């Protein structure tokens, strides 16, 4: 996070992590497609070969709250291929929140696990723990055959800490929900740490609703957040002192 008090500007870094070909770039493309022209900059894709990300994709989004605080969201993807380990670590540096994009196909279960362990390890290298990092998990490619069942994901998701979303990023399904879930968790964590809401007279609820609208959503934040199939959306909220 970068905070510019003079210009009342907040920059938040969100990273889409996950195994190769799980649909991280597709998620960004879907977000880019639905975002209102004034809110989204160009989607930048760095050095691709055969449609594979070599360095990262970057989607800049910017929103302005009613209190006048400009919130710039920089949404990154990491290269999923195993060999780009050092690049992943670089991109992850300074991330405020992570969306883990998993491939729902049963054949990819191991790849998902490996990538998740890689995420954990890379966070550790940056001196962070998975527990501290706002995280949502998206099971993408729900439209393909031989996938892990809804029941299985719902059951495991309910036991876990992280909100879990189901998506078909190619068709834009579940993409905004996952993003709003991630933004919500990230904002909660940053607010808890830096007391941003009070400092800037910032109404998170109003802001989130505004973001959802700019992403072409008719539904409100609550409804979007409720789309998750497990985990907790308030784990990172500050403790309420009586």
């Amino acid at each position, binding site marked *: 996070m970068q905070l510019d008090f003079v210009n009342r500007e907040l920059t938040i870094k969100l990273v889409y992590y996950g195994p190769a070909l799980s649909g991280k770039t597709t998620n960004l493309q879907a977000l880019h497609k639905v975002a209102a022209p004034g809110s989204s900059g160009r989607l*930048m894709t760095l*050095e691709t070969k055969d449609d594979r990300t070599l360095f990262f994709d970057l989607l800049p989004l910017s929103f302005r709250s009613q209190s006048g605080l400009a919130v710039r969201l920089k949404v990154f993807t990491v290269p999923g291929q195993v060999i780009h380990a050092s*690049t992943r670590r670089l991109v992850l540096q300074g991330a405020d929140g992570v969306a883990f994009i998993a491939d729902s196909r049963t054949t990819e279960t191991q790849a998902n696990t490996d990538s998740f362990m890689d995420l954990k390890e890379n966070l550790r290298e940056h001196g962070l723990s998975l527990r501290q990092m706002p995280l949502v998990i998206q099971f993408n490619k729900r439209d393909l055959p031989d996938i892990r069942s809804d029941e299985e994901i719902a059951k495991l998701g309910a036991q876990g800490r992280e909100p879990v979303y189901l998506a078909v990023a190619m068709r834009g399904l579940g993409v905004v929900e996952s993003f709003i879930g991630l933004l919500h968790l990230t904002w909660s964590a940053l607010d808890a740490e830096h007391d941003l809401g009070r400092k800037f007279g910032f109404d998170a609820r109003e802001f989130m609703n505004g973001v959802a609208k700019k992403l072409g959503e008719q539904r409100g934040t609550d409804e979007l957040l409720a789309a998750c199939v497990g985990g907790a959306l308030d784990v990172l909220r500050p403790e309420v002192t009586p």
Partner: protein
Amino acid sequence: MTIPAQRDRVEELTVGKGARLEELVDRESLSQLAKSFAELSGVGMRVFDSDGKLLADASLPVELVTYLTTLKVAKTAVESTVSSVKNLDPGPTGQASIDGVSGGRYRVLALEHDGRRVGRLVLGPYFPPSLKDIPAALIELEPALDLDRARGLLTMAPRVTDESMDRLAQHARAALDVVMFSGLKALLTGSMHLASVRESYRELQSKQDKLQVAYDRLKELDRLKSNFLATVSHELRTPLTSIIGYSEMLLEGIAGEVVGEQREFVTTIREKGEQLLTLIKGLLDLSKLESGTMSLRRGTLDVAPLVKDVAQTMAPHAKKKGIVLQADVEAGLPALWADGERLRQVLLNLIENAIKFTPTAGSVRISAKLASMAAASGADEGGLVLLGAQRTAVEFRVADNGIGIPESERGRVFDAFYQVDSSSTREQGGTGLGLSIVKRLVEGHDGAVRVEANEPQGTVFVVAIPLKRSTLRP
């Protein structure tokens, strides 16, 4: 953890304060773009960065303005217009216009990148078609104005409607936006390349450091092991000397007559004691060789007496097993500069080995002759012309027709404690130290030892000791 500069750079470009206009555009290309715009539209174009520095200038001379600068009062007014255009803030809408004294209009546009203003675009001067005549203000201002000439020049000035100008400005801005985006992309790609390389290097470096620590530790452990061996061997030898000494005294009858089975038992004690002593000496030698504390006592050494002596020493042993031991030394061999005691140990070891692995009625043959050897090993990797230079050496060959050593095992027989066949070890005995000691002693003489197959059966150990010491090795 220190963060490499390049990583900072990527961070700055993406989530930080972003890039400056100057970093995003190539100034030469920007000038060409401005020039091409000016040629197409007939309106000049200039690009300033956020500090007001001129990055590209494609202004077109407008003769009316040029004429005005020749007049005293109007010149000041023109200059004042130019300077206000330079400093005009396009305001929150990102767009502003300013009219000059000539009636020419300038359009100033904010250049935005990633939501931030990085510079300004100035287009003009252009004359709206609605401007029918020289502005009254100018006529009033400049008494020396030649109105007819000015009117004539006005007809030649670039005429653009504000609506057309809007479209031209949009187009110019969009083109610059593409240029800036491509510039950022190239900048980020370059920075990421560097950052990735640095990160990989850092990773390798940290692995290398870990390996170095592990290596140092292993080396230390190895040294400790050698020290331990040396100490233990020494401590073991002391009581053993007493065991052997007292059993000898018993056998000599110093403590009274030893008879029958008593003698047999004491003899066994003495023999086994000596066997143990040999083993301990071997260990001691090896650890000394490993720790580099064994020094060679070199002197002039005649080969023929050495071989003869070794053969004589081993003859009874061979005879006992029914093996023929032959010795054969080429006549006229030059003397070696070597440690006679150690070289004797080498040959004894090899012959003992040969006898051990040769069945009854077999034969073992030791020979010495003049030969040549490579100056240094390792020529497989190149440099043969240097490393392969031949040196004169005395070659000792200990050949047997025993069980032989499979080719795959030949490289490893010189490793300490290595046994080709552990079951055979039990049958044949031995510690697996002999050949390892041999190799080290030979190398101590700057020589080389290798194993060859003996035709049709058996093994040949070849030891080459150079006549002159190489200056390469210490």
